[in-house]
Each structure stands twice: as C-alpha cells, then as structure tokens.
C-alpha cells in the first residue's frame, strides 16, 4: 500500500486528509439478556462498519467512495468529516493531529474542525425547519466569530451568490424552497465556514436528473473557484464517472479497490468492481441483458471469513475463504485486494 501512496504523495504534495487503519465498531443497545451475557464474559455482537481503512486525499482532488448500502461508506464519510470518533486508527487533516489534541487548545481544535464540512443526502432533513435561510447560513460563522453580527446580511448574500441563488430566498424557511434550492442552501451552509475539504454523502441522490446535473456542475465550479477538495460518496457509478479523479470501492467495511477514475472504468481489477460496472445502467439501448452479481450483501454482524466477497464471487478459490486479501499495488497508483492478483 505505502509504496503507491508515496508515489502519489511525491507527485501531488502533502495529503489534505490522511486516514490510517481506521476501525469503527458499533454495538447494539444491550438488552437485559446481553447484559447478563456480558457479565458471564461472552463476547458481544458488534458491527465493524469500517474495518481497517487507510486512505489519503490530496489537495484539489475529487475522490469518490463507491459502495452499496451497508458497505460502511456513510460511516467512513462521517469519520472523514470528523463527526465520528474512531474506535482505532488515526485521522489527520493537513498536518494537525485531530484525534489527540491538547484540551487547552479547544478553540484551535474547533477551528481545525471547520476545515472539513459535510453535505448530506436529504437537504430537508439537514436544514433546521424553524430557521430562515439567512440564519441557517450565518449561525456557524457567528458562533465561531468568523463574521460580526453587523455583517450578517452581507455575508449571507455573498454565500447565496456563490451557489447561484437570489436574495429572495434569505427570508424563507426550508419548506418554502424547491429541492434544488435546498441542495444549494446545504452547500452554501457547508461553505460558510471556509472549509478545505467537503464530504458529500449521496449529496445528489435525492434530486431529479435535470437538477442533479446543475448541482454536479456547481460542485465543479466551486472546486475551480475556491480550490476545494472533495470526498464524494455515492452508489451511482455514472455520477462518479462524471466527477471523480480517483475512485475507492468499498465492500462490507473494507476498501477493495482504488484507482484513478478513467483506469477503473476502463479496466476494473477486483471481481466486485467488475460486477458493479456490469450492473451500471447506461443509455445504450442495445444492451438488453442485466447480468447480476449473485446473492446479496451478507449481514455485517457475521461477515464471511477471509475475503468478504467470496460467497458472491464468480472466481472464488479455497484460499479466499481462509485468508484476508491485502490491499496492494496492481499498477501505478492502483490498489486492489484480491488473491487472484497473486495467482499468476
């Protein structure tokens, strides 16, 4: 892993976000029975939503994280945005260690936190229904002292101008806006504190196609204008292809493949990636066969042994059941976790 990453670091400078060996486990709220079982020393059921993920995002890059529901991509997004503490591993944002910080430097810590902001899937749920747009946008900058109360209106005007909205929306409540306008407000709010990294969790999944295209172009405009870096989480391969520089494929808590966007779509390495690409719907009318990846994603409470994908994999071997494949280089700037790559 490190060899390829080092090569990339040399090419593009220092990583803005570096996540190393990240593990996040969740345990269900214990019932009386499980509490008793815990007393008797039996192990507790828990989900490793993120299972030893290492990734780095470089300045000015759009990295897409692709996975199906239950793959742990939203958990990883929240870790990347600094919203969830890690069970194990480290998250580092542009040089400053964010996991262990001096309590006395709480203010610096808060400032550091502002550098990564998140945009959520459902903008209606993510906006406070009782706050007017102007208050939604200026609350965080006011709290953090980035603007003075007297500048509130001028600052808000600048923010909505950046996302292509007119002054009229400032006095409205979220329910009075259309879906596209809400998405723009969600973006303007994230930008209000001047972040360097935007983490978008299925940010366009709830939008209509014509509106989605507007928002995707807005992301690209903002990247050019403000020099932003994106971690873009999506299940939609078409959206990923239209936007990303680099793609990470996630399956059941682990990254199984990592590659530059064009190369991944041209020549996927991991069998899961190949299956996903075969599923992706295109506008090609002549393609009339839906070739499916067999079966469903297993329960994350009891992930399969060895390679998590082996029960669904068309090329599974005996070794796949026993041994965890390691994510290792399979080409320049390309990583894949599959035993097939050793077989040659």
């Amino acid at each position, binding site marked *: 892993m490190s060899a390829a990453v080092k090569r990339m670091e040399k090419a593009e400078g220092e990583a803005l976000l570096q996540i190393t060996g990240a593990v996040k486990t969740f345990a269900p709220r214990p019932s009386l029975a499980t509490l008793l079982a815990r007393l008797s020393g039996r192990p507790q059921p828990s989900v490793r939503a993120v299972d030893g993920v290492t990734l780095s995002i470089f300045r000015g890059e759009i990295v897409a994280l692709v996975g*199906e*529901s239950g793959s742990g991509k939203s958990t990883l997004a929240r870790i990347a945005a600094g919203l969830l503490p890690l069970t194990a591993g480290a998250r580092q944002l542009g040089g400053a260690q964010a996991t262990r910080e001096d309590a006395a430097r709480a203010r610096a810590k808060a400032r550091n936190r502002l550098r990564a902001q998140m945009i959520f899937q459902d903008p209606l749920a993510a906006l406070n229904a009782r706050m007017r747009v102007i208050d939604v946008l200026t609350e965080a900058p006011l709290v953090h002292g980035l603007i003075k109360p007297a500048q509130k209106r001028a600052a808000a005007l600048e923010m909505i101008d950046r996302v292509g909205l007119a002054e009229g929306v400032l006095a409205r409540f979220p329910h009075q806006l*259309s*879906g*596209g306008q809400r998405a723009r407000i969600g973006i303007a709010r994230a930008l209000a504190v001047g972040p360097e990294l935007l983490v978008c969790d299925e940010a366009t999944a709830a939008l*209509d*196609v*014509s*509106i*989605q*295209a*507007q928002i*995707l*172009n807005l992301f*690209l405009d903002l990247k050019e204008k403000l020099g932003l870096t994106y971690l873009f989480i999506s*299940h*939609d*391969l*078409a*959206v990923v*292809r*239209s936007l990303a520089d680099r793609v990470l494929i996630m399956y059941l808590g682990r990254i199984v493949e990592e590659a530059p966007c*064009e190369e991944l*779509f*041209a020549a996927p390495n991991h069998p899961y990636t190949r*299956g*996903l690409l075969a*599923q*992706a*719907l*295109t*506008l*090609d*009318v002549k*393609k*009339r*066969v*839906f*070739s*499916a*990846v067999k079966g*469903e*994603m297993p329960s994350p409470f009891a992930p399969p042994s060895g390679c998590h994908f082996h029960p669904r994999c068309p090329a599974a071997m005996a070794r796949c059941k026993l041994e965890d494949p390691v994510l290792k280089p399979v080409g320049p700037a390309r990583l894949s976790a599959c035993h097939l790559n050793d077989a040659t």
Partner: protein
Amino acid sequence: MTSRVLEVAGLTTVLKTAEGEMRPVNDVSFHVDRGEILGLVGESGCGKSMTALSLIGQIDAPLASLSGRVVLNGQDLMLLSSHARRKLCGDRLAMVFQDPMSSLNPVLTIQTQLVETVLAHRHVSRARAKARALEVLQTVGIADAKKRLDAYPHEFSGGMRQRVAIAIALLNQPELIVCDEPTTALDVSIQGQILAEMQRLCSETGTALIWITHDLSLVAGLADRVAVMYAGQIVETGTTLEVLEAPRHRYTEGLIASTPAKFLGASRSRGARLKPIAGAPPSLARLPSGCPFHPRCAHAVARCQSPLEETREASGRTFRCVNPGPGANP
C-alpha cells in the same frame, strides 16, 4: 397485428386544491401491447404516478374528477362502477409500488397476504391458493420459498421484499402490471436481478408492463417503448431506440444531456460536463401558457406560447413540440 392490452385516450385527472384546479394528468394517451414493456419517464411532480393511479382506478371522486378512456382488452374501465373496477385490481390489473415495506402488511405473514389475494378473486381451495403462492415465490427467485412462506415482511431484505410484492402482483396472472419505481430504493446489484426477472416474466407470460421511473438509463435496457412526461402531459412517445438516440422534444433532449449515465460506456474526455436544463419544473397550479416547457427551453419560439397539437409520425411516434429536434433523418 399484435394484440393491444391497454389503450389510454385523453385521460385527464383534475384535482381541486386550495391553490386552484390542477391537472396532474392532462390529456394523456398511450397504449401497451401484449408482452411489451412501456417505460413512463419523468421527473418528480410530472404526473407519472398520478397517471398510474388514475388508470388502475385508485384515484376517484370526490378527490378528483376523471375523464377520457382507459380500455383494457376491449373493455372501457371508465364506464364500470367503482365496485366493479375495484374487483379488477389484483386480478386483471396489478400494481407494484416503490416501497414494499409500506405496501406489504407488517403484521401478516407473506403466506396470508399471498393466499388472500388469490382467494379474493378465485373460487379455489385454500390448499390450491397456497400451492399457487409457492409457485409464484419460486418464479420471482426467492430461495427456499416453502420455508419463507411463514415469514413476516420485516424478516426479508429490501430486495426480497420487493420480490414478494412482485409475486403478489403476478398471482392471478394479470393482463397488465404497473410498476411505480420498484427498484429505486434498491442497490444496483439487486436492481439488476429484479430487472432481469421482470424481462423474463414479460416475455414468458405475455404480461404487458408499464414501468414508471425517473431514470432514462434504466429504461434504455428494459423498455420496448418510452413515453416521456412533463407537467402532466406526455410530451414524446416512441420506441426506446428512437426516443433515446434521436429525441424530437426538447425536454427529452435536455433530460438525456443531464443524465450522467451517458458518460458510462463511452470514454469521457477530461473536464467534460453535463448540460443541465436551466430552471425548475413549473407548479401544476400555475402552468405557463402553451408548451409547459417553453420557459426552460433553449429553442423556444413565439409560437410555443400558444396551445399546441400533438404531432403523429407515420411510425406511430408522437411528440408535442413546434420546434422539434432533428430526429433520425433531418
């Protein structure tokens, strides 16, 4: 000539709301033949779900007033009493909804729900009904169907639940199934499995299918013909190939240019961007005059603001546009 299963002509649904009269379904005409899959495409609020509910008879007075003709194998459903119409649902007509968790009853086993659907329409013994239930569950690809009959909806995964909903629709061998975005909530790998299943069922049983979706790329591989809806009207119909490769209506053209899926398959040149349609769809209560799309249309001319007729080509292709795209052979 192929046999026509459904012919919809001039279907209009008028809702009276506080904001005034709305026509979520406005003079809608289309047809579906035996074994054919029609993709009904449009964005949210364009009236595609209301069209489905209107034609299966789930929207009625006093909520709405309906007019037009809905002819199922020669019988005009709009002339039937609401009781007679209701009896058709689940028998000759069936519908599959987007969210199976809310269309299945959470407190009954799926066996109960399947058997009850058979017994409501057929005079057969419970044992026969159960045998039929088992048969359709196997048809839609539920492994170990015999054991799963006694399970409750929450014991199934999302994809399996949708298969159960499809199984219920298939029970009485309907002439027409209307599917309202049944795979939107599912993962791509599960969606692929269900699409393959539906294609096979339609060609094997000859059931006609209306598949409602917002996703042009889904329609591309699945449907034989496509109808595109905008603001309550069908703005363009034609074979999938015609509509996707050579759209005539400017809205269809814009929709295709906005779809990220066009970057899949073809190699994308670096920095290529989508071309979105400007603005947002109009409110149904305040529709622009003439073509409802003209305020967003880059090709609008003065005539677009006056009422317009549907153009029908010899091939059966229709569109409502006075300044249409070039089509196949300009």
